[in-house]
């Protein structure tokens, strides 16, 4: 059962029953907005049918704003790393549509398990971007409260979070917040991971658990074509979304540079989950335009031509063209957004530099919820040791 306006039942559309690589070859990539900014239709997925024109325009403008600000966060953070204010930064350049499309498809009660690159999803979930910087600056290991925005901490061990997501979704099932039909109650989890992560045992085990318990989780894979220096071909020899076929739930490949399509597909997948129809695999087909992280040097392993080709598929440019060509946004709107971006950039620059270094002794805090005498003694010992120096001056 699917609610009106939430798109098709993906199981019928892309489930094992119907899907073959032949067919998907036919269906191809789900796309609703071409790189040139043309709206196109898809037999199974639509955007905006459930919206009045004004709403539609507002929604797309919202996407544009989210993507633009997300990109600015990324650009600023990259610059901050260059200036030594961050130890490292994982850039999302090129993946704005995949992340905003997914992020905007979420409801407040949905829960996100991110990788280390989900800055755009964090933005959509209302996490203060400044809080994202702490981890990369080295002042903390995750500065936000996961409970505040239902946005989990970044996970660095590749794939580990997909099992947490599945377990969290199993918890939702036990809380009776799945398939009740109440849109404000029914909940789902989204698990983010990359193309490389798809090779980890944990990720495949999460597919098995999610399928076995029919857990309300969407496996959202950003296939940005690279795992550091390794191309997607090293991880799989068939389109990645087809992995789901082996586990008995639907997989869909969507144009990850098309925010409308990503939004539509993710929304339908999340609704399946909330409705109690179980897991879906969404492969957002995109490209990592930047380096893996600021410490990486992609010129060692990939050709600039690829990057150039993907530049033409920029996720933000196509929305701008679409908005302008169809008169869905005034120039003032674009000016406001770039002004807002400048403010955000300024706030991040200043805020980052102002992030306080942790106190040495804070190293001993929160190892446990209930501290042990052993550890307290170690802290006191080190405190005394540190004082011995102050005494010395």
């Amino acid at each position, binding site marked *: 059962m699917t609610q009106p306006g939430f798109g098709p039942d993906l199981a019928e559309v892309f489930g094992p029953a119907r899907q073959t690589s032949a067919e998907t070859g036919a269906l191809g990539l789900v796309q609703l907005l071409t790189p040139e900014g043309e709206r196109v239709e898809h037999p199974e997925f639509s955007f905006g049918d459930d919206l009045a024109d004004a709403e539609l325009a507002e929604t797309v403008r919202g996407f544009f704003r989210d993507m633009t600000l997300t990109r600015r966060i990324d650009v600023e953070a990259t610059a901050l790393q260059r200036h030594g204010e961050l130890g490292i930064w994982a850039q999302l350049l090129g993946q704005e549509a995949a992340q905003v499309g997914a992020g905007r498809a979420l409801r407040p009660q949905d829960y996100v398990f991110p990788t280390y690159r989900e800055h755009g999803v964090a933005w959509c979930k209302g996490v203060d971007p400044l809080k994202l910087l702490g981890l990369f600056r080295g002042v*903390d*290991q*995750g500065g936000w*409260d*996961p*409970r505040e925005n239902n946005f*989990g*901490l970044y*996970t660095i*061990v590749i794939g*580990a979070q*997909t*099992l*947490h*997501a*599945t*377990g*969290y*979704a*199993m*918890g*939702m*099932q*036990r*809380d009776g917040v799945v398939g009740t039909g109440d849109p404000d109650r029914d909940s789902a989890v989204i698990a983010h991971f990359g193309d490389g992560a798809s090779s980890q*045992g*944990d990720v495949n*085990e*999460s597919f*098995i*658990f999610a399928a*076995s318990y029919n857990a309300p989780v969407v496996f959202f894979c950003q296939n940005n074509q690279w795992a550091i220096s390794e191309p997607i071909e090293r991880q799989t020899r068939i389109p990645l979304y087809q992995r789901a076929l082996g586990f008995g739930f639907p997989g869909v490949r969507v144009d990850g540079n098309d925010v409308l399509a990503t939004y539509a597909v993710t929304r339908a997948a999340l609704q399946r989950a909330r409705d109690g129809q179980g897991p879906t695999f969404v492969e957002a087909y995109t490209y990592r335009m930047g380096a893996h992280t600021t410490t990486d040097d992609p010129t060692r392993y990939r050709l600039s031509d690829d990057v150039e080709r993907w530049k033409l598929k920029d996720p933000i440019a196509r929305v701008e063209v679409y908005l302008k060509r169809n008169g869905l946004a005034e120039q003032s709107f674009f000016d406001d957004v770039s002004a807002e971006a400048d403010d955000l950039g300024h706030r991040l620059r200043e805020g980052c530099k102002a992030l306080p270094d942790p106190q040495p002794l804070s190293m001993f*805090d*929160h*190892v*446990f*919820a*209930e501290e*042990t*005498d*052993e*550890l307290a003694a170690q802290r006191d010992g080190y405190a005394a040791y540190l004082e011995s120096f102050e005494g010395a001056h």
Partner: protein
Amino acid sequence: MTTDSRPNQKVTLAKALNMGLRKAMEDDSKVLLMGEDIGTLGGVFRITDGLQKDFGEDRVIDSPLAESGIVGTAIGMALRGYRPVVEIQFDGFVYPAYDQIVCQVAKMCYRSQGRTPLPMVIRIPFGGGIGAVEHHSESPEAQFAHTPGLKVVACSNPVDGYWMIQQAIAAPDPVIFFEPKRQYHADKADLDESATPDPLFTSRVVRQGSDVTVLSYGPTVKTALKAAEAASNEGRSLEVVDLRTLSPLDLGKVYDSVRKTGRVVVTHEAHVNLGLGAELAARITEECFYSLEAPVLRVGGFDTPYPPSRIEEDYLPDLDRVLDAVDRTLDF
């Protein structure tokens, strides 16, 4: 269930753990059990016998055959507010979950600055002497105790089993809970469910003595007590400590004992090299340097893989090897 709460019944460790789990599930509806074959079968050791029948499949969860998956999804459930109790079928099968335990379970509270603590229990039947094939007789406790963020305990008898499992489940931090599988169906003990248990993270002097302090936990407590009995016949008085908590260690009583005896023998089934005995020797020597009449001696599993079961009793520390160490420390 009423029969379960008859005061002072004689129960095995297996039964006591089963009763403890049942009690914890009755007391807190958030408590869930996860593992392989823990449902209809009640676990290969029957520790969860009858629990799925009484609490349903949503709370006693038979999982796919994947330990990393079990622990990883348990983490997610804990983040959602549940209190998962994971059963690892045998000690040797915890390793596929090692990454999730060491990198996620142990670090979630720290990573989140205390915002998302992870109260969960991972039960591991451990130790040898049951005539099993490879991977069924391991003692991996040192590897978990070396990992900050985990609390590690080992029960040695039915009464402790009953209380400690409930305390571990109630604890706000992740607890690796070791159960001496050789003892599961061995001795019965009087269980008084109305008694007040010792706190979880405390060690206990289980036999008073004056000549040598013998430190043990889990399966070797019984060995140590037997050794003490035998030694007393030869006029030697051994003080036996059941450590109970392996991380954190609770060594106050141990230091008192060592200051009294000046001699220490540590015994565990784990390999001697970098086993708990190493840490105990280091700390005791640092704390009681001038009280020691002899170096701390360690009696443990040898530094070989666990051998074929027909010679496992040669591998495992036994009464004679403990007494031999006692002699050596006294002759030192």
